[in-house]
């Protein structure tokens, strides 16, 4: 990948030191949190809708082969060509081959996280094809040469002033002012010519509708339709977990997706794409290709991460995550950031490279509370911690420390003696109620203060209370 391969801790430290980043993250996630809360409050049936959404996803996952074959049959009947890719390399090869066979020079792309996951941007560049990102945020990060930092707002790490700099140098003519409205107008002008001049348009899919063979996209900008209508070829890349039985099931999930993602009730453009242009149609592509991508998903089906296949990519978990809101998306180092990314990245990139992510979690449970399909994200993160321990991926110092703790914890007398000494020593180190630096845990106290303990252990206080039958103050 293009980012230098720093360790997670170094990336997180750099993010924490970036004041502008903190402001940019807070603006977007804070806004998203408030708007979601208002949308859920205005929909008293939300809890029941969430239970239904979860049940729909579980039903599809339990019959995934059945629905994949049904989708393939109906998409083919609608005139689309269905391709299957077991991993990211196969998916890249299929898309690149279709583009090269069509002698494509310009390819427009409507934002798709699966496209990022399979490395499509680099594959197109390597094939010598001009790639034009059409989602405004993707356009911003394409100019900046960056990867998305959020699955719904990929450029949320960029302030308005930074976007203005990118547009001033990247747009010809440059925008006349740096307010958001003028900059959006500038992007509209630049991209319109690209939409109409593209040879191939590539989109993702929010849903694959099994009983009609439709691929469904949702956008607020209208870029998906402008990407997929004018070119001669429309290519869809989608993960196999995106299936729903029917259009009505898609609507049930859509109500959850939009409210959880942006706090809206409906995206401006919700489009069901059935195959290529029909005979006599006024516009539309002559070919439609759908690439169904596995890339680790069938592996998740067979292990404790199966529940993660319910994910509808709304981003609510990251908007409500205390860790994401401190470090932003790039620090996670994978395609998907935040809690859902910390679960998915080890599947995609391997646990050895990404074991730190499962530890970068406070287990406060906010992500699971807001997940619209009830994914137990903290439980899944604990599962990665357990696997990392089992596979001996934790560094020696952690293993030795936890081994020592386990030895003491199994000997109650020793444990009580150690904790009595510990709380008294910590009390001596504290000032005004807080311990600012801990020996052996400087990495932890570098960013946090620890509350100064009371000076007596829980067991000591409990005994005193039992003896005196009085409440300690």
């Amino acid at each position, binding site marked *: 990948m293009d980012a230098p391969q720093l360790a997670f801790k170094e990336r997180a430290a750099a993010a924490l030191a970036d004041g502008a980043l903190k402001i940019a993250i807070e603006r977007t996630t804070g806004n998203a949190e408030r708007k979601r809360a208002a949308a859920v409050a205005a*929909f008293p049936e939300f809890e029941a809708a969430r239970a239904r959404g979860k049940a729909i996803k579980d039903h599809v996952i339990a019959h995934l082969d059945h629905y994949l074959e049904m989708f393939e049959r109906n998409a083919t009947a609608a005139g689309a060509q269905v391709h299957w890719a077991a991993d990211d390399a196969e998916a890249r090869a299929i898309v690149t081959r279709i583009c090269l066979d069509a002698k494509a020079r310009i390819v427009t792309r409507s934002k798709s996280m699966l496209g990022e996951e399979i490395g499509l941007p680099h594959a197109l560049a390597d094939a010598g094809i001009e790639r034009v990102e059409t989602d405004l945020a993707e356009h911003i990060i394409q100019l900046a040469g960056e990867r998305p930092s959020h699955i719904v*707002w990929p450029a949320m790490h960029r302030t308005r002033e930074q976007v203005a700099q990118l547009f001033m140098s990247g747009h010809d003519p440059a925008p006349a002012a740096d307010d958001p409205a003028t900059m959006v107008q500038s992007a509209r002008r630049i991209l319109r010519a690209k939409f109409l001049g593209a040879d191939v348009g590539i989109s993702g899919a929010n849903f694959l509708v099994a009983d009609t063979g439709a691929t469904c996209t949702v956008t607020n900008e*209208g870029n998906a*339709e402008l990407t997929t209508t004018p070119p001669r070829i429309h290519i869809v890349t989608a993960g196999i977990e995106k299936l729903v*039985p029917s259009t009505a099931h898609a609507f049930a999930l859509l109500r959850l997706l939009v409210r959880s993602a942006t706090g809206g009730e409906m995206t*401006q453009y*919700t489009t069901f794409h*059935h195959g290529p242009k029909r005979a006599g149609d006024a*516009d539309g592509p002559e070919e439609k290709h759908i690439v169904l991508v596995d890339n680790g998903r069938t592996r998740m089906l067979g292990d404790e991460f199966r529940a993660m296949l319910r994910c509808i990519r709304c981003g609510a978990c990251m908007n409500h995550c205390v860790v994401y809101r401190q470090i932003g998306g790039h620090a996670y180092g994978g395609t998907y950031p935040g809690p859902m990314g910390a679960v998915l990245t080890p599947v995609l990139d391997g646990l050895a490279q990404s074991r730190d992510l499962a530890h970068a979690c406070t287990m406060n449970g906010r992500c699971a509370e807001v997940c619209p399909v009830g994914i137990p994200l903290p439980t899944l993160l604990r599962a990665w911690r357990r696997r990392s321990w089992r596979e001996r991926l934790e560094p020696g110092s952690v293993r030795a420390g936890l081994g020592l703790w386990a030895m003491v914890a199994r000997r109650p007398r020793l444990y009580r003696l150690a904790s009595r000494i510990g709380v008294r020593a910590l009390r001596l180190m504290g000032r005004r109620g807080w311990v600012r630096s801990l020996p052996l845990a400087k990495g932890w106290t570098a960013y946090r203060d620890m509350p100064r303990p009371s000076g007596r252990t829980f067991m000591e206080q409990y005994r005193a209370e039992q003896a005196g039958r009085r409440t300690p103050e």
Partner: protein
Amino acid sequence: MTARERILAAIRDSLGPRRAAPQAVAAEAAALLENPQATRPRLAAPDLAEAFALKATALGTTIDHVPDMAGVPAALRRYLDAHGLPPALALQPAAELARLDWDGIATRPTLAPDEPVGLGLAVWGIAETGSLVIHSGPDNPILLAFLPLHHVMVLRRDHLLAHLEGYAAAMQGAAQPRNAILITGPSGTTDIEGSYVRGAHGPGFLHVILVGP
């Protein structure tokens, strides 16, 4: 083995050998849609047109009312005048629109890349969300809904559906168009610091002419 065979084999490995018959899966899927009122929002008003208008205007869509189709050209003229636009537009090549009296308004069946105004027919309106449905076809280019800065849609009152499921039911077993689009408000973006800006790629203005007594 092809990728298709490998993926399906991996799924069957994980799911195990005891599998439900297709009819049982279909019954289970249908059961997941029972009692829809328990999991969908109530309408914003008891009257469909009123509920539709409340939702649509909240998103920045404007609405005009005319009693019948013959009133559409005059309503369009009102809109053009209010926005200081010249009396010209790209008109969807549908028979229902072509037969109207467009006297004094220059209509074109073609679309310029920076078309100022486009007018088309909505197949359905959805009261729950304030959405308009369009279908691609020989008489409906999809770009008509995206290239113009001002998108004007004619919606017949008796084509209003209460909920999203109503649209799914209406299309059950019907021939699907290449594109079926639910349009809910003008194009917008919040990609720069969360500021809402209209007219991101598609229309900056969406105007509905609601037709019916």
